[in-house]
């Protein structure tokens, strides 16, 4: 029982940055913008967070710096993609490569240096509770932060007027514009907000999950996985978060697999999440193919199951909106 609780705790920890990053990207994509720069953003934010906390000896200032860097990169994408009408995919991809190299270049002097990390938070009285205490007793603040972010994003998206506007500019920008919503500005705001969350994910890596900075840091590739999880989770904050924890579970079990198969070299397990990413995307998308939908239609049980599982991307995802061109 205790090992089970500790495994859950390990999954919560490994999943925390992924959750933050996927929620950030979900916010951005709900507004109709694809931010492909996640992988580089996370790395640059991780570097900035570590460098800042090492310089000023304050990990929370570091987290703030990470969020600022994430928002800044997303801002560059937002301005070029939204206002200057360039391809979001192309700019996002360039920003990924640029931020990655920038992270290694600027972080050169902080490589393999000691620095503070976020440490652990204890909830008073919690560790006395038998099972739950082991999971939530004394955990890194990023774990609590990621769990709160899930609730907040869900509440914001589906229970507030701001969330309604967010979904409106992503689903039907023309209708939203007709209602007097400043579509481009709203999109830019969610680009920045999503980028800030992605930046926090970077900080979570370098200050909590894999403390320290170096080349490689160990979070390379996480951004791409996060982008795939957003699709897997169908642009719904709770389901994306579940997807992130699912991938974290795979990573954690990968460590155990390594003990079972010692003959397979360790680096091979680091790339294991990527075939998993392809297979899960395949599984999600298969459900939308003609012949599979025929089978589903014939079986009432599968039909009701697929209703709960069906996913739709925001209708205007990746599309330009120019108010000057009229309604």
């Amino acid at each position, binding site marked *: 029982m205790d090992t089970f609780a500790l495994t859950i705790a390990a999954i919560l920890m490994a999943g925390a940055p992924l959750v933050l990053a996927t929620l950030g990207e979900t916010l951005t994509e709900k507004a109709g913008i694809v931010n*492909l720069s996640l992988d580089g953003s996370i790395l640059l934010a991780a570097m900035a967070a570590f460098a800042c906390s090492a310089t000023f000896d304050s990990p929370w200032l570091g987290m703030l710096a990470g969020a600022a860097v994430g928002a800044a990169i997303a801002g*560059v994408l937002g301005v*070029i993609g939204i*206002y*200057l*009408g*360039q391809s979001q*995919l*192309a*700019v996002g*991809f*360039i*920003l990924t*490569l*640029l931020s*990655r*190299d*920038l992270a*290694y*270049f*600027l*972080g*050169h*002097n902080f490589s393999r240096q000691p620095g503070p990390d976020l440490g652990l938070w204890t909830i008073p009285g919690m560790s006395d509770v038998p099972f739950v205490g082991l999971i939530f007793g004394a955990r890194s603040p990023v774990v609590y932060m990621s769990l709160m972010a899930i609730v907040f994003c869900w509440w914001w998206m589906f229970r507030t007027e701001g969330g309604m506007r967010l979904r409106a500019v992503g689903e039907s920008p023309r209708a939203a514009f007709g209602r007097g919503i400043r579509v481009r500005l709203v999109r830019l705001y969610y680009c920045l907000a999503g980028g800030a969350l992605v930046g926090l994910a970077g900080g979570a890596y370098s200050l909590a999950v894999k403390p320290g900075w170096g*080349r490689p840091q160990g979070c390379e*590739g996480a951004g*791409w996985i996060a*982008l*795939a999880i957003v*699709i897997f989770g169908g642009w719904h904050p709770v389901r994306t978060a579940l997807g992130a924890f699912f991938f974290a579970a795979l990573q954690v079990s990968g460590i155990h697999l390594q003990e079972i198969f010692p*003959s*397979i*070299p360790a*680096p*091979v397990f*680091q*790339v*294991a999440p*990527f*075939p998993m*990413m*392809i297979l899960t*995307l*395949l599984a999600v*998308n*298969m459900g*939308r*193919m003609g012949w599979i939908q025929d089978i589903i239609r014939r079986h009432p049980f599968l039909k009701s199951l697929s209703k709960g599982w069906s996913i739709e991307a925001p209708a205007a995802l990746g599309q330009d909106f*120019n108010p*000057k061109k009229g309604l």
Partner: protein
Amino acid sequence: MNRESLLTQTGWLILALLLALALTVIVALPTGAPPFETIYVLFQGSLSSWSKVGRVLAGWVPLTLCSAGLLIPFTARLWNIGVEGQVIMGAIFCTAALRPFDDGGSAWVIALALAASVAGGAFWALLAGLLRVFGRVHEIFSGLGLNFVALGVTLWLIFGPWKRPGVASMSGTEPLDISLWLPRLANMSVSWVGLALAVAALALVYILLHRTKWGLKLRAVGENPKAATLFSLGPHRRLLQAFMFCGGLAGLAGAVQVLGVYHRLLPNISSGYGYTALLVSMMASFRLSLVPFICLFFAILNVGSIQLPLQLGLDSSLSGVIQGIMVLSLFIVQGLRLWLKQRKEAD
């Protein structure tokens, strides 16, 4: 698209370059890098002797092979992000074909290895294509995932079945017999075979895209996939072919790395040329005529940056930063032009 005078075009290009220069200086300031000295070291480290020029050309060959290949799927509006993995697969297939000949072989064996590498790259690209066409997995994710899988396969081979007798390390497999190395051009570390292959690839892509019906139809598929289905242009088959062509050229780049540069299989065999090639083709705005020149410039940056850690204590990733900023600046300037045009039309 209305044509503008050469003068205006050059003006905008110079503006983009100035913006790139300014942005590079701004981002490099926090490290205390002296701007002019850094630029001097970059170019001195890549052009000051014939052997350095040889290294630049050795980098130019795989970059050109990948960038030229990338224009084919881009014509059909496909993002082949998997080039990196296709380079690696080409290198793996090339090494596999040479394993029975560890005592050496003739030019025919090298030709066989080159053919194997083309097959390997095309096979890896086909996987991404099949996932896209029949599995509806976006090619960005399948390509990227397959890059990491290819890296995993390399690591497994180097540490497993193909490890050097005694020691298995990141330094790669047992070196090839010297008779299997590509012949060098004079005393430089570049092979004339590699150069010939790169030039041939440029010509092949030009003919394919601009002088054949196949290229015309591919363009039609990219412009309007729905209409292409109606006119029975066979978009699925054509998309797969486009992927495989690009993968084949990328695989060839992998073979050049194995046969001409490292003479063995390494974890870092692709040297990131696949990703750089994506930047090159975007910077060239998908025009083949610009590709060789941008590749040359990027290769100069890559080779020159090796001197940065030695002479200035800077990280060599500065070359990647400059490349990224240049492409980004071009996009910013293009966007500004669009914005100005729209404002003029609105008035």
